[in-house]
Structures are given as structure tokens and as C-alpha cells.
């Protein structure tokens, strides 16, 4: 474990989610390495549809990479994958294992993030001990077809102010529209394509980080 809860807000500033569409472990790790060089502070491995064996191989490589760089390392959905790779925690969604259930296996120290769908779901996740929330889509996005209509900056700001855990904004974020997420009081922003598919992931991460300065 490299990132404790006390340092969580800071670690959530520039949060990269990997895309399982890039099927190579080597390529995924290389993109993450470059992104970390550019200032990414958290990485979430999303390996949906991958064979577990390959997901674990990637998780172990990213675990080592993130530990060396002091970067938060989380695994999407799979608690067993997080445990097997000694990740800092997991990020869960409505269809995944419930937060309080995941906590039973992961323990008190682990970071558990949650992407709520609607107000009631959000409140329940917080009651059950989610450490941070991923809220979006802030803007319209093509990466997640099922993400629903964009919240818009105003609604996103209301949500950030209504909860007392760190919030990261996700969905359609680019360096030129990410400032609004910071101004809304979010701890950070999460991106997939804007960094993961950038020609130069390090430069893309740097451009996001400049917005946050």
C-alpha cells in the first residue's frame, strides 16, 4: 500500500483510468509509465473482458510502477485482483460488489471509490464507507456509451458541495474544460481517452496538471 487515506485527496488530482481496448499488458504499462512522468497521481486498472491471468500480470506491473512513483493504484471492480496485486484499493460501480461487502475482504485501510448513479445511490455508498466518489459525466463523452446524459458543471458543483468525501469529475474532460472541475471544488479529475490515447501521454498529463496549478 503506497497511499493512505490521509493523502487521498491529493492523490486523486490527476487520475488515469486504463482502457481494456488496449489489450497488450506491455502497452498498457508503458502508457501508464509515460503518464506518470507527466504527473498522473492515480491509476485505475480497468481490465473488463480480459482473462484474469492477463489482468493480474498487468496489475502486478502497475503495482510496482505506482509504488515506485508514489502513485495511487486502484483496480476496477475486481476485489480479488486488488488483493492479489496488493493494490491500494478498488473502484466500484452500481453493478459491482457492494462497497460494504468489498470492504470485508479488503480491510479498513483500503481505498474504495464508487461511481454512484443518482442521489439515493450516492448517499448509500457514503453510508457504507466509500472513500471517494467518481461523479459524471461532467461533459458528454464517447468513451462510455452507457454513461448517461452529461450532468453539466452546475449540477456537478452541487454534488461536490453536498458530500464530505473527495470527488473526482469524469466524462469528456480535456485540458481546456477541466478548470471548471477544479473550480467546482473537486479533488481531481479522471480521464481515459484524453491521456490513454494521446500521442504523447506525458504531455497530455502535463497539460491537465497545468490547469490544476
Amino acid at each position, binding site marked *: 500500500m503506497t497511499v493512505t487515506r490521509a493523502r487521498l485527496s491529493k492523490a486523486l488530482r490527476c487520475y488515469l483510468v486504463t482502457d481494456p481496448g488496449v489489450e497488450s499488458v506491455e502497452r498498457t504499462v508503458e502508457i501508464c509509465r509515460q503518464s506518470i512522468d507527466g504527473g498522473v497521481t492515480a491509476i485505475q486498472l480497468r481490465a473488463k*473482458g480480459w482473462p*484474469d491471468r492477463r489482468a493480474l500480470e498487468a496489475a502486478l506491473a502497475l503495482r510496482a510502477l505506482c509504488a515506485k512513483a508514489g502513485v495511487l493504484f486502484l483496480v476496477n471492480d475486481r476485489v480479488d485482483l486488488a488483493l*492479489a496485486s496488493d493494490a491500494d484499493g478498488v473502484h466500484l460501480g*452500481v*453493478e*459491482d460488489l457492494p462497497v460494504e461487502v468489498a470492504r470485508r475482504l479488503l480491510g479498513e485501510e483500503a481505498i474504495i471509490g464508487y461511481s454512484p448513479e443518482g442521489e439515493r445511490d450516492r448517499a448509500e455508498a457514503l453510508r457504507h464507507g466509500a472513500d471517494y466518489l467518481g461523479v459524471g459525466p461532467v461533459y458528454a463523452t464517447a468513451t462510455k456509451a452507457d454513461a448517461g446524459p452529461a450532468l453539466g458543471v452546475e449540477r456537478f458543483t452541487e454534488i461536490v458541495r453536498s458530500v464530505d468525501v473527495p470527488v473526482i469529475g469524469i466524462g469528456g474532460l480535456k485540458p481546456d474544460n477541466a478548470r471548471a472541475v477544479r473550480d467546482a471544488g473537486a479533488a481531481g479529475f479522471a480521464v481515459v481517452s484524453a491521456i490513454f490515447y494521446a500521442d504523447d501521454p506525458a504531455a497530455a498529463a502535463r497539460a491537465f496538471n497545468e490547469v490544476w496549478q
Partner: protein
Amino acid sequence: MSAVPRLHLVGPLGITRPVDYLGIATRAAAGGCDAIHLRVREMAGGDLLRLARSLQRELDAHPDVMLIINDRVDVALLCNADGVQLGERSFDVDDARRLTGDRLLIGRSIHNVDGARRAAEVGADYLLAGHIYDTPSKEGQPGRGLEWLAEVAGAVEIPVIAIGGITIDRLPDVLAAGAHGVALGRELLESADPYATSQRLRQTIDREVRP
């Protein structure tokens, strides 16, 4: 660690609906299946955990029947299943063992003798070896046959469960080839009477396998 079961049902495999599987599994357990595997493709973790718990409630009346979860070690631990079944694309047996300790049986599906040896070396509790006979589930891939099964069983010390096209008529040969037990998917899922079929399979096993 409990003894390895001899009559396994593997489902729902996309062949039956998960909700129908609960009934089939319960009747199979009543008929003498002593292991029920939960194997379902691409189901979200939350849904899988709920399905596993429903299955456990259905199986409450049969406390000796083991529940075995495919692939998801986290779900297996969370629902207090009896085992986890791993395949060539899953976690390695030793990686899974670090998470389960001795709490769960770990089965490994294998398709060749080298794979069987390796799985046994890294601590699998039993092997699921197949497919033995031609089966619609593996169209275009001929069954590996009884000689192959005997070779696998001779190569390892741990119990070998035969899978793939197993029927009541073939069961004595399969056991004679060295199988500790058998696993059925489609053959039981599509059976008109899973209870009676399981019962006949069980009777044959009990007759052929002397304690």
C-alpha cells in the same frame, strides 16, 4: 479440507437462465450431486454474488453439497463457498491460494497432461479434465478419450474429475479409467428430470467406487 466431491453439476453456462439454474441445481443436489458449480459468463460481481447467495439458500437443505464458484475468488470468499474453479485464463492456482488459504478447495480445469502436472505441483486440490467425449459444447474438437483420461489420472496424485459428454452408460468406463468423479453441464442442464438423472449417476458411482 473436505473430501473432493464425485458428482459435479456445472452451470448455467448460458444454456439455462440463471433463475432456472437454481431449480435444476436444487433437484440435482437432491438426487445426489455433491458439488454445484456456478459458472456464468460476463456477469457483474454484484449480480454474481446475489445469484451465489440464492443458490446457497436453495441448497440449505443439502449441507453436504459443495458450492464452487468459477473464476471469481472474491465472490467465492464473500459467499463462503466451498471452492473455486480456475481455468487456463484464470488466476494461477498459487495466486488464488494466497487469497483463500485452506478455506476453499481449488479446482483447476486442464486440457493436457503437462497442464495437469503443473496444476498439481502448484497445489490444486483436484483437476477437471476434459473434454473426454465429443460434446456440442466443444463443436469441432474431438473428445480426448479414455486413454487420455487414464494418462492424466496416472500423472497426478490428486483426484481427477472427468468432464465432457459424460452419460450414465459411459460412467463405468470413465471411473475405470481412473476418474475420481465426473462433472456434467449440458447433459444435466438439459435433462428432462435432473433429479432422476443425478440419482442414477450417483447410484452408479456408489456401486463402482468402493470405499
